[in-house]
Every structure is written in structure tokens, then in C-alpha cells.
């Protein structure tokens, strides 16, 4: 649909809107119109109008992940959540409720001033809450505090038909009703537009230490990782960082806690690893994706002991140009394939790594722009795909929400 028609279709909502441009493109798909609602009722009005006129809709926060995931097959209306930026911090309850458009960096700063934090690592600087939750990526701290979805305790989402619905609440302990926030965390906006999220928070620990060690490759690091996990030092993160080139893999173990305890705990871990490198600073790139901004990124999720096996297969096919950063303690991380890696090669890397990882998954998180439009088996086998399709059919029967991003074959 052309911009005039779309603007006419949503005109009655009174929501601020303008024609889309190349800068608004979602994985290369330019939206006909971009709208900036100010609150949940405005998002409802927009999606209601879109439903009546059969518009295809996608949502965006600050656009930091515009190149992530599959290209929508079409987008008549892009809903930008940037104005939904309210933050209500219930300090004494260690809970924060935020609009989907609130910037993660700002949220982090605000919570930090109160001695609290959301234990979700930055991952992508400049991101909004809604985009972060919809993409569902988690960093090093997930090992101790769980992935992002474990931190979400309540959510409001506008459905494809414009109906706004909430689940969960503002208390951490709550088993009333289905926890639909889980569904939208990592749902890529294909089941609804997230308008507000409530998170549980943690106190900022008094002190931390980082122990670093080097090993020839991930397989050589597996034993030491096992030893750290079997210790009782309660690491907050156990990270592998394998930069491109033929060099060693770096292992980082983070301990956090009472100031009186961190040195002894870090010392114990250093002894286990035969390491001498103990610092009170995080290395560059900590908690962010590896690789250059435009490279292809794969997500690897494995049983703890399966991760080194998968990484060996990955390097064997992708070569030393590829890098990896992720949680050896949780079994989840991100591999970066350098810009210029062709579609055939990516396909071979996916196939070989998946073969090496029967009880895990390898998915394409982001593809480099030169791979746009080329066929990629980005999900591999998805257990439960049929049930997921049934869910999609119920929530978005006409498949108008981010069509083509997940399971619309």
C-alpha cells in the first residue's frame, strides 16, 4: 500500500505519522508510513486501524537492530515506540516498570544511581527496552541471574487486532494466569507490539573481580570451565572470548559480592585456572556482540559440554576470521562471521555447527547487508514449530505482524 493510503487509513487515530524513507528500513524493507504513538491507547488505535485496513505492521524502538532477523516480506506501517519512554522505579521493591521506548542506557544509569541494576548486559548500545525484550538476547550475567526472560515479571502488549492486554504484574512472586510475557520475549514482534515491561531488579554488588586465563582453544578450556562450575565460588559469569586470528581463547570469570570476600573467591578461581590475571575492571567488549557492526552473527545455544564441540566445528568451517563471545557457564553465545562471508559459506557453517550440536541450536541473529534477500536457513529445526504456528495463527490470523520474520512459510 502507498503512503497516502496508509496515512488515510490511520488518519482518524490522530497519531503522529509520516511517510517512511530508506533510513527507516527494516532489513531492507522500507515501511510505507512510520507512526510515533505516545501511549498504549495510541498503539491500540493504530493497530486497530491497521487491522481494519489489512495493513502489515512492524515495530521498532531506536532501530539499533534494524538489520537483525529476517526481512519482513512487507511493511505498510512501522510503529516507533520511542515516545513510550516513561520509567516508574519502585525502589524499595526492586522493581521497575518502563515504557517500551525507554532507552536501556538511561534506565541503567537511573537504576545505578539508586544502587540497583537490571542484570541484563548492554549487548547493543542505544537499544530500547521494547527492542531488547523483543529480540531477547542475554549476555554474561545470565549465567547467575538467568536470561532476560527471567527478569521480566509483567508486560503489556497490543495485539494484532488492536486489543491491549497485560499479563504478570509488578510483584516478583506471582502465579496468577498464563505468563504471556515469556512468549513476547524473543518473539520479534510477531505476536504483538510490546508497550510496557516490568522487570525485577538486583542490588549492585559492593565489589567484583575478574579472573582471566588463556587456552589454545575452547576444547582446552572445557576442563577448567568445568572446575570453576564445580567450585563453590558462585561466579556471576564465565565467559569465553575467541577473537579472530589464530590466537588463543580467553576465559574470564567474574565474581561479585561483598568487598571482604571477592579477593579470596577470585584467588580460589585463579588457582583453579593456573591464572595470575585478576583485575577489578571488565575487558573491552564485555557484554556486547562480537564482530564488526555489519557482520553476520549466529547465536549458539548448547549444553555446557556441547559448546566447545560446536565451536570447534564452527571454526573448522568458518576459518579463523570468525570470532565468538559468550557464556561458557550457561552454554550460550554469539559467533561473528566476517563481512564478505558468502551465503554458501554461511550455509555450510550452519550445517556443520548444527551437526556437531544435536542437542542445541544455531540460529542466524543478524545477517550482513550483502546477504539480504539470499535464502538462509536461519532457524534450523525448530522443535514445537507446529504449536508455535498455532499460537501465531491465534494471535495474528492474517499474519500481518512482521510477516516473514518467523515461521511464515
Amino acid at each position, binding site marked *: 500500500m502507498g503512503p497516502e493510503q496508509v496515512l488515510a487509513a490511520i488518519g482518524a487515530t490522530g497519531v503522529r505519522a509520516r511517510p517512511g524513507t530508506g533510513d527507516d528500513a527494516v532489513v531492507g524493507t522500507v515501511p510505507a508510513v512510520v507512526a510515533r504513538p505516545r501511549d498504549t491507547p495510541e498503539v491500540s488505535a493504530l493497530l486497530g486501524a491497521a487491522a481494519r485496513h489489512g495493513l502489515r505492521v512492524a515495530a521498532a524502538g531506536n532501530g539499533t537492530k534494524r538489520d537483525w532477523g529476517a526481512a519482513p516480506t512487507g511493511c505498510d506501517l512501522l510503529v516507533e515506540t520511542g515516545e513510550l519512554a516513561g520509567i516508574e522505579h519502585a525502589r524499595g521493591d526492586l522493581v521497575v516498570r518502563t515504557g517500551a521506548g525507554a532507552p536501556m542506557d538511561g534506565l541503567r544509569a537511573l537504576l545505578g544511581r539508586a544502587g540497583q541494576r537490571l542484570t541484563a548486559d548492554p549487548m547493543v548500545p542505544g537499544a530500547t527496552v521494547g527492542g531488547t525484550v523483543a529480540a531477547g538476547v542475554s549476555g554474561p550475567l545470565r549465567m547467575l541471574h538467568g536470561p532476560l526472560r527471567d527478569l521480566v515479571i509483567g508486560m503489556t502488549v497490543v495485539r494484532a487486532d488492536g486489543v491491549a492486554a497485560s499479563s504478570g504484574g509488578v510483584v516478583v512472586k506471582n*502465579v496468577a*494466569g*498464563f*505468563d504471556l510475557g515469556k512468549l513476547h520475549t*524473543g518473539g520479534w514482534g510477531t505476536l504483538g507490539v510490546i508497550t510496557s515491561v516490568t522487570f525485577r531488579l538486583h*542490588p549492585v554488588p559492593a565489589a567484583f573481580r575478574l579472573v582471566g586465563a588463556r587456552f589454545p582453544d575452547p576444547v582446552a578450556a572445557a576442563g577448567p570451565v568445568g572446575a570453576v562450575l564445580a567450585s563453590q565460588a*558462585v561466579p556471576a559469569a564465565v565467559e569465553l572470548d575467541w577473537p579472530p586470528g589464530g590466537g588463543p581463547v580467553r576465559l574470564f570469570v567474574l565474581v561479585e559480592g561483598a568487598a571482604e570476600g571477592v579477593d579470596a573467591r577470585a584467588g580460589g578461581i585463579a588457582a583453579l585456572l593456573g591464572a595470575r590475571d585478576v583485575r577489578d575492571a571488565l575487558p573491552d567488549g564485555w557484554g556486547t556482540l562480537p564482530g564488526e557492526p555489519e557482520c553476520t552473527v549466529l547465536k549458539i*545455544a548448547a549444553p555446557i559440554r556441547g559448546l566447545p564441540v560446536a565451536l570447534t566445528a564452527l571454526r573448522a568451517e568458518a576459518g579463523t576470521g570468525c570470532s565468538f563471545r559468550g557464556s561458557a557457564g550457561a552454554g550460550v553465545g554469539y559467533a561473528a562471521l566476517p563481512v564478505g562471508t558468502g551465503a554458501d559459506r554461511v550455509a555450510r557453517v550452519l550445517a556443520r555447527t548444527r551437526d556437531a550440536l544435536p542437542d542445541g541450536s544455531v540460529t542466524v541473529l543478524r545477517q550482513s547487508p550483502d546477504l539480504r534477500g539470499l535464502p538462509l536457513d536461519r532457524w534450523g529445526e525448530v522443535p514445537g514449530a507446529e504449536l508455535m504456528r498455532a499460537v501465531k495463527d*491465534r494471535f495474528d490470523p492474517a499474519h500481518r505482524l512482521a510477516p516473514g520474520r518467523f*515461521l511464515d512459510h
Partner: protein
Amino acid sequence: MPDAMTGPAALAPRLRAVCGADGVVTDPARRRTYESDGITYHSAVPGIVVLPETTGQVAAVVRLCAEHGVPFVPRGSGTGLSGGALPRPDGVLVVTSRMRRVIEVDIPNERAVVQPGVFNLDVTRAAAPHGYHYAPDPSSRQVCSVGGNIAENSGGAHCLKYGFTVNHVTGLEIVTPRGDVVRLGGKAPDAPGYDLIGVFVGSEGTLGIATEITVRLTRAPQRTSTLLAAFPTMDAGGRAVSAIIAAGVLPAAVEMMDALAVEAAEAAVRCGYPEGAGAVLIVELDGAAEDVAAQFEAVTALCRAAGAFAVRAADDPAERARIWKGRRSAFAAVGRISPAYIVQDGVVPRTALGGVLARISELSARSGIRVANVFHAGDGNLHPLVLFDDAEPGAAERAAEVSGAILDLCVEHGGSITGEHGVGVDKACHMPRMFSDDDLATMDLFRRAFDPDGIANPEKVLPTPRLCGERPGVVRGEHPLVASGQAELF
């Protein structure tokens, strides 16, 4: 009465072909033993009971139900406290008590794979020799099933720090309400696609039956220290809790009891708590030894500053058990000082605790109904015990009113109608107090994606007109599991 030709009884021969003669219960007296779960107020004799041993059998049973439009209700150990496993006279009760195999304990990957009927504590028992445990620890853990824990998203005293069941499940094999066997996730975290595991956990048997479960195992802490502090008033105890949290300490557990609960526990088990306490607080800290030591000092100082007149510490298991004894016995003990009581389960934001407790005592004073407070203070999960004499005319009604009003208070303060006991039939009609019609319709949308014909545990969780107006569950005397020493009501 369901028709013998079309109702579940008509399925008996085919169910026997699937589960064997001894896997199908038709005898009325034996069926009656399944008529209720942990709250006996709701009861119904199931049309037929099956005891499958394998996933294949569960799937075949559910397929038969689906073909014939017969509802089914999953049941684990039947300890649920919201009538989630309440059977249907026109349906099949699928009991997992013959699926009790711990399939694998995989320490290097920190996982255990179990059948749904396995008792919660047996997972920890299997992992303990390796220095690991299964973190979710409902106080019914000796007898409740992991399948039931999945369905209820159960927590325990230690969920303040370690989270609920949902935070510890990475893989599920389920039989859908259509009878399909579907695997979701496994030993790896972050199964690709929509997080169906995350919603299945806590769905109370309405999305199908979990037939195999992969859970995370947690390394046992190096040190555990428990502290008991006595305060002159609940208010002072509450201030200590706030101060501990504000200081950035995350204890493994923070439990609180009021004077009435302490008095009852003292009479029942002589736990030897300090005399004259208006509130008793139990704080458990665990983790790396150095961390625990530092936090212990801080917590002791904060309790004293908030007005604690006695503080006791325990580092060894025997001492710890003594401190916990009073807390663990509290519910049963209250059963001894009152002919009947209602156990309520509601949540308030921690900062609202003081205000809500004051309102509860007002309610109690106004109605003449005594309320004992025993609760998970760290996460604002109240378990008020509403005491009454069921021989006194009108007392039950007044108690039910007080109990309902407490839930209203929770919702008014931004909390929840249930923190761990679930909705089931018992609170389905309270759901509209917390959620709008649109919220509930959206939950139903999800449910229908799994169960288009509505045969999986119908009339649970989401409200239906038929359900509303019934009274909440009343406990008379001691719960049989508690009486037999198999479980503690917590």
C-alpha cells in the same frame, strides 16, 4: 450423570488396551480416593482414572479423549492447594504416579532428566552425592511431583534468591491436548522460537501433560547461615526486612511470623523462640563462605538497629533445623488452636507489607475473626491463616469474607491473588480482580492454540460463570500429609 455409553466409562476397554488392566481404575471406591487434591473442599469423583507408565501411553489416552471429546485432568501427587487436579465426573483423570523414574543425572551439563511423577526431593537426592541440588523447594517436596511443580510453577522458601520452577526448566516433552508428543528444548538453554516452555510452566495442566522434564541442577552452597531475630512488633520486623533489602543483601530466605503464629508453634513443638516477641524473623544466607560471613554481620546489625531484642545464629544443620522447626510447624500448629481455618496465599509489593498487615488486623478486629500471619516476607508473599470455629453459625461465612477481603487488599496494593498455590478452581473467579476481560481473553487465545476443543483441565485458571460464588477451601484439623509427617505446610 454422564451417559455410560458415551461418557468416560465407555472408553474403559480401549483405555485398558493402552494402559493394561491394572492401569485403569473403574471401581467407584478406588476412584473416590482421587476426588480432591490438597484442598478437600472441592471434590468430584473422576469418571475414570488411568495410570500410564510411558509417554506413548499418555499420548494414546489423550488421543482417545480428543477423539471422543472427553475432558481429561492431569494429576501428579494431588498436593495442589487450588483444586487444579480436581477431577471431572465426565472425564478421565490421568495420574502420573507410575512415571517415577529419574532418567538421567548429568552433572557436567548441570541437568537432570526426570519423568513427571518423580517427587521433587528425589531430584535433589539423586544429585546430592555430586554436590548439587534441585533448587525449587516447595515444603511439600517429599511428596509433590515435578510434573505438578511444572504445572504450578512452584516455589519454596528459597525462591527469593533462586527463583521459581520456571527458572530451572530447560526442556519438556509434552503430550498436547490433541495427543501429539512434542519436545520443547532440552539440555541446552534458549530453545529457538517462541518460549513455549516459559508459558507451559505455570499453566496448571490446561495445555497438556508434561511427560519428561529436563531441569537445571544447582551447585550446593559452600556455607549456609541462619539467623533468628525477635522484635517487639510486626512493624519493627518489617523495618528490618526493608533495611536488609535496601542494604543490597539478597538472602536465600526471609520468613516472618506474628505473635499468634509464634504462640501456636510454641504450644505445638516448643521451638523455644524468645518470649514476648510480637514478630519473629528468620533470615537464611547462603553462598561463598566469605560472602555469607560478611552478610551475616550486616544483617545482624540491621536487625538490632530495627529494634530486635534477641538475635540467634545457627551455622550447623542441627541448630538450623531448630530455628526452622517453629516456622515449618506453624500452619499445622495453628490447626491445633482453631477448629478450622482458611490458608490464604496472596502477594503484595514488599514496601506495602506494613500497611497491608495493619489493614488485616483491622479486618480481624472488626469481624472478630482471628488471623495468624506466617509469610515469605522477602518477596511479600502472605499466607494469612484465617481462624474460625465451624460449629459457630455464620463463622465460616465471616472467615471466607475476611479471606476474600485480604485478597482484595493484595490486588489494591498492586500485588497478586496467588504467589505459589495457583489459581485452579479455587481462585478462577478471583482472576477478574487482577486482570481485565481483554487480558483474560488473550490468555484464552493462547490456551486455545494448544487446546482448540477445550478438553485439557477445563474450568481451571480462567473464570467461567459456573464456578463463581463458591466458597474458598476450608481446612479442618490437620492436613493428612502434614499429620503423617510427609509434608509441611509452609
